[in-house]
């Protein structure tokens, strides 16, 4: 029994271990010390939070390409109102920043869900179309001149350790709880596995789907506030540039899904994001150009999915 647990733990940590070893060998002087691992953990928290939200939608078998745009929009509005609150007191500022960001995130994703249900068109299409709209909305928020928001270093507590890690872990606990200990979690998995049967058993598929979108929105809102706290500003992006924000969470989710036989996917996602962040940091440590990083990530993704797909078919 114990052996089995060890085996599972080892396999689920295999990716980060391999990546770590590779870069440690290549550049022991600049990589591998505890401090840089700590940095990596902090940086991995941001995409992880979005990934946890996205995960609920992916589990349903749906897509949401709009999350990047939702994050920007929720972050900007949260930031503006947070700044106003900050003038009164930082505590109020934080409270407002987070609650507004979460609310906007949930609201926008609620719209995603409703449009998808009512129009009866594929989620890829719905969310890309809405992303185009959200991006533009971010440029017309009153009081921003179309350039988003800047905190000027205020409200930056959650961009620093240990607060960023704390909020990341709290988000992870929330995701874990929602996934395994709520009716929504069970029914989301049921719908994702076999929607027709789930429906015939009384699962209210439409309601659950919208709920799942809202849950994703909550996490995206948290992510927005966290990112704002860390970077101190949020600028609207157009021409679907905010699509770029979703790739890292998607990859983390993939890794979480791939290893879910061995470890709870919520934790798997964190491991995945950690690995990816470590990969990028490692590449920088050995002086690989930022542009080539993309190349390596691409190859990495192919190898991982290739290996896993082969394993599954055998």
């Amino acid at each position: 029994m114990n052996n089995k647990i060890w085996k599972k733990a080892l396999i689920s940590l295999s990716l980060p271990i391999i990546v770590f070893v590779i870069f440690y060998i290549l550049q022991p002087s600049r990589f591998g010390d505890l401090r840089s691992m700590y940095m990596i953990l902090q940086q991995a928290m941001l995409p992880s939070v979005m990934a946890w939200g996205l995960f609920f939608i992916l589990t349903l078998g749906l897509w949401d390409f709009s999350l990047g745009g939702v994050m920007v929009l929720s972050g900007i509005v949260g930031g503006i109102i947070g700044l106003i609150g900050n003038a009164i007191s930082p505590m109020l500022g934080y409270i407002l920043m987070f609650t507004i960001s979460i609310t906007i995130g949930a609201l926008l994703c609620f719209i995603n869900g409703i449009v998808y249900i009512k129009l009866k068109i594929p989620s890829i299409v719905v969310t890309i179309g809405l992303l185009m709209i959200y991006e533009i909305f971010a440029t017309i928020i009153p009081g921003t001149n179309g350039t988003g928001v800047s905190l000027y270093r205020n409200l930056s507590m959650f961009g620093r350790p240990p607060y960023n890690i704390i909020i990341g872990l709290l988000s992870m606990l929330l995701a874990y709880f929602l996934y395994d200990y709520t009716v929504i979690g069970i029914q989301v998995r049921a719908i994702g596995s076999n929607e027709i049967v789930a429906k015939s058993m009384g699962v209210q598929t439409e309601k659950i789907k919208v709920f799942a979108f809202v849950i994703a929105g909550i996490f995206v809102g948290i992510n927005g506030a966290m990112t704002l706290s860390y970077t101190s500003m949020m600028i609207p992006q157009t021409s679907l540039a905010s699509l770029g924000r979703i790739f890292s969470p998607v990859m983390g989710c993939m890794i979480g899904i791939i290893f879910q036989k061995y470890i709870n996917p919520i934790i798997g996602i964190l491991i995945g994001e950690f690995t990816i962040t470590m990969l990028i940091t490692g590449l920088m440590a050995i002086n690989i150009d930022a542009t080539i990083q993309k190349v390596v990530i691409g190859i990495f993704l192919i190898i991982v999915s290739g290996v896993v797909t082969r394993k599954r078919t055998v």
Partner: protein
Amino acid sequence: MRNKEIIFESKDLCKSFLMTKAVDNVSIKIFKGEVRGLIGENGSGKSTLASMMAGILKPNKGEMFFYGKSYDPKDQVDAAKSGISMMVQEMNTIEGLKISENIFLGKENEFVKNGIVNRKNMNDKAKKVLVEFNLPEIQPDINIELISFENRKLIELAKSLYSKPKLFIIDEATTSLSRKGRDLLFEMIKKLKKQGTSILFITHNLEELMKICDTITVLRDGKLIDTVENNDLNEDLLKNMMVGREIKGDYYRKDYDTCISTNPVLEIKNITIPNVLKNISFNLNEGEILGIGGLAESGMHTLGKVIFGAKKAESGYIKDIKSGKQIKKINDAISNGIGYTSKNRDQEGIILLASIKDNIALPSLEKFGKLSFVNPKREKDFCLEATKKLKVKMNSIEQLVLYLSGGNKQKVVLSKWISRNCNVLILDSPTRGIDVMIKASIYNLMQKLVQNKKSIIMISEEILELIGMCDRVIILKDGEISKEFKRSKDLTEEKLVKHMI
């Protein structure tokens, strides 16, 4: 005396699909605590009737009453709330979910406090349910795909009964159960009957039917023929009512002395797949109908796939004698003139979302032009010719196969291969889910084919079919050949079954 309280009644219930009238003015009464059997050939309307009762389909005309009140369920869930639930043949449990989650899906609120699902309570209750269904060794906390198909079906049964329905419909759900599973089911039925639950039991198995039902209703061509008390029954009477004519030997072959050539056309040698097939070797001779029988898990369906090149064997080979080439992939088989109809017609045999024409043309695309050009006129003519040959009932050749009846779908599948003039046909469960008329025409077709020196391998779970149609029957048991029989008047079901189990 039996309780005469009517719990379910239908008046002139009708349901049509396009041109076919599936249920034609059926008025049926079901009593409390009754175990009612519902039989009829495929296409008689049994499943359609049951689906309307269970809220899956909506009737076009007519009314239903449940406990005297007008009954018009919005959907399956609504019907279940009213007290009518149904168990179907297909697998209705959800993979990726734990057993306890499957059992209580849709009813989790029972275990929820303050938004949190109490897993311990859920598992404990699930354990109780499992024990009640004679499955004490199964842990409720594991994923459902880890247990056997039969146990999954039993858990499905547990789930359907958990809500304590007043009318429980079983639609051909026994085919995937072993002897042990069926016995368990019958125990359950007896228990439910004592508690006052009514059961509607739909099955093809007349023996089971007569063992457990109080009364039996017979449907034919969508109409209700009669409802008979069990005591007044015998098999021949039932069969007569189902088919409407003397069916003894009516559609199977009548000849017994046909000489089969000993020219082998296919050599199957030492086919082995660990845990599935063990050293299967035999030859298929020219002009013969070779039957392969056994239980569902005997490996015969996999064997069919291996012969067609769709599945790879660990060792052994399939050889086409004429060309001398081995069959390793599907394309090898097809180019050597072998065709295959799968048991899973809708997933492997036919493309539902494609037209009749596209389906028939697909394996023969190279015939319609040079250099991979596909001449649309030649394609259309070719396919029309094929559908005429098999008399496919359709609106137009561009019609989606999706909307055809089971029998006509099978005709399209067969047209696909016959239009290629295949020398060998591997037919896996060719008459499953097909009405009597088309069944007869398929048997007829098979005879014509072998008269023209084609060879057929027929894999079937219907023993009567094998006895009636084949020159030789090979019985598989647990992946091995257990016995071979030659066509003879004295062949009986018992003789074959003895070697299957």
